[in-house]
């Protein structure tokens, strides 16, 4: 059972462009939605997270958009830089749960 579906599997964007990664979930008990960034040889690192009481959250060049009725959320990377080249994972969890359910990951390549 795939609890969180993530797309695309990979994307290539030019420096300065916008990267958009989408995730969809099925479990209506999910109410915490983080995004993790992973560089090769490293563990995932928390990038930004959102709860369903807001439709958008922005931190620097990274924005999460959340659509509760559609059960979808997305990550937008504005003004993409080569240093943003990494694998991005969306995840979801009920607040009082111990387990994060991760999406399959999106490899982002930013071309200079």
């Amino acid at each position, binding site marked *: 059972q795939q609890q969180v579906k993530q797309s695309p599997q990979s994307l290539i964007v030019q420096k300065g462009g916008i990267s958009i990664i989408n995730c969809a979930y099925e479990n209506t008990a999910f109410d*915490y939605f983080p995004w993790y960034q992973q560089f090769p040889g490293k563990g*995932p*690192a928390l990038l930004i997270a959102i709860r369903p009481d807001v439709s958008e959250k922005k931190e620097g060049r990274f924005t999460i958009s959340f659509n509760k009725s559609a059960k979808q959320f997305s990550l937008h990377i504005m003004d993409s830089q080569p240093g943003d080249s990494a694998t991005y994972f969306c995840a979801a969890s009920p607040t009082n749960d111990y387990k994060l*359910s991760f999406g*399959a990951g999106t490899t982002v390549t930013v071309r200079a």
Partner: protein
Amino acid sequence: EPEVTQTPSHQVTQMGQEVILRCVPISNHLYFYWYRQILGQKVEFLVSFYNNEISEKSEIFDDQFSVERPDGSNFTLKIRSTKLEDSAMYFCASSGTHRNEKLFFGSGTQLSVL
């Protein structure tokens, strides 16, 4: 910045052998986790540990797996009799006051079962 430390970074073992993966979580954290990532696949939850006991485990975490916090600083994952399909990157993670929020992951142990 505090970090989660995992050793070894790579572990090669023969099928059927026991392995112990070691982790030193961030010192004031209360919640500890093991996740794994098979090459090219998503990160999967194995187990969470809080207040010196398992708080939740996945279907993957069967009787071949165990966790321990032997001395208040280390957190270990033991696989009793390794199988080929146990080959994966194993990540230890810890978090502070909130259960699944702000997980800090270590750099992982790449386990190869031959």
